[in-house]
């Protein structure tokens, strides 16, 4: 296993940082690929490998600007892998970021908070300008 996976955000796919040795786990930006398998399957495969030998603490940041309904399934898949790590007695937390005025993304976070056992922290931020 390479020791990290870092992907730049694009027009229709999010940026990815999976860097266990620096305790950085983040998915951010826009996610609206039509073919979600093509983008997400390698990412999820990578997280599954990480799950075989995870850190004691995994704080996973979801910082989406937007995602389409096809991406929802893949986000659910990622959370499912995190749940496995959690159930095995590790410390796992989801940090769900949303721009202060972005009610849609806040509600999306609340939906996940309702539907997973992992602790979810909703965190708003404000753009400087």
């Amino acid at each position, binding site marked *: 296993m390479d020791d990290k996976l870092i992907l730049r955000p694009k027009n229709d796919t999010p940026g990815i940082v999976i860097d266990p040795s620096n305790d950085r786990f983040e998915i951010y930006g826009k996610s*609206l690929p*039509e073919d979600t398998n093509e983008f997400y399957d390698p990412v999820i495969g990578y997280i599954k490998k990480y799950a075989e030998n995870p850190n004691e603490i995994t704080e996973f940041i979801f910082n989406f600007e937007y995602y389409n*309904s096809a991406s929802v*399934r893949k986000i659910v898949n990622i959370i499912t892998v995190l749940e496995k790590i959690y159930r095995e007695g590790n410390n796992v937390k989801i940090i769900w970021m949303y*721009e202060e005025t972005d009610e849609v993304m806040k509600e999306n976070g609340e*939906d996940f908070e309702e*539907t997973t056992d992992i602790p979810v922290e909703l965190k708003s931020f404000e753009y400087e300008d």
Partner: protein
Amino acid sequence: MNNNTIFQFFNHLKNDKISFAYRGSFSNSVLAMATELIKNNMDAEHSKLRNKLSFLMIESFQNIARYADSEAFPEPETNSDFFMTRNIGSTFYIISANLVSNDKVASIRERLERVNTLDKKELNDLYREVLTNKQINQKGGAGLGFIEMVRKSKGKLPFDFVKASETHSMFFMQIELKNPNVESEQEPAKIEEAKAIQTLIAENDILMMHKGSFTSDAISPVLRMVEDNMNSMKLKVQKKIYHFLVEILQNISKHSYVINNDREGIFLIGFKDGVFNLGTGNYIENDKIENLKTQLDHVNMLSKEALSDLYRKYLREGRETETGSAGLGLIDLARETDDNINYSFTKVTDEYSFYSLTVKF
């Protein structure tokens, strides 16, 4: 705008391989995006026309800014200035419509009639004369724009004026750029058609209309354009419109009925009394209608709470099933509109129908 309007537009544009129309105030960013949209979506056989088409679109667009007297009607809801690009057969049409004060009509008419009668050599002579002439009018160029449009398109500039009020007229002009390498049996589009479309757009308070083949490659520039164009709106509304378009356009690209290798679709964005109206339309196989109707009726029947429950149920249980997301898009859209998802199916042949949706935000 209702489902009938969408079908009406689609029929007006039946022969258009791609068309894009915009109404409202004109900024350079709209122009940049419109040119990008057309460039990215034109058929490969027309690729040699790309640069010329961009040039002519820019000239036409800036011509609206140059001659427009729309300051008299600053409200976007009453502003009917209009820009459109369409491709039918071998020809691209660039149409502009803007209000000019009645006292300018005679001089614009005179310039256009002049450039429309000149042959190639006379046109070049006039071009050189205007370039060296010191008498350039205040609003930039003694008709240099018109001369360039004729020189570059190698066609005429059909135009018309329609009286809009005691003080203003609507000035219509059409640039025609023909691809000499493509044979076409299509009837050329007359400026009267452009006038009819502009009327339809203004009457239905449409801000933007796009008809084309919605493949996954073609969707991305459309979305970026809509996104950039919505920067002044409230974030919540902006997100909802964007979300609706992503879901619907991707749906068209996946499921719509294929005719001549194209998955044709249309979308319209309207705005009236503070409410955005979105409409889409595409062909669909008759076999698929029953199932789709059932899903639509189902989500329309459910309360906001029931929709949220259904959505969360999917988040909880849908993780292992690969087919579990059927209808998730619809559930999500229904959650976000305050109204129903209004739909309509109009039978076209025994094989397929026209399927349209409208929602309000």
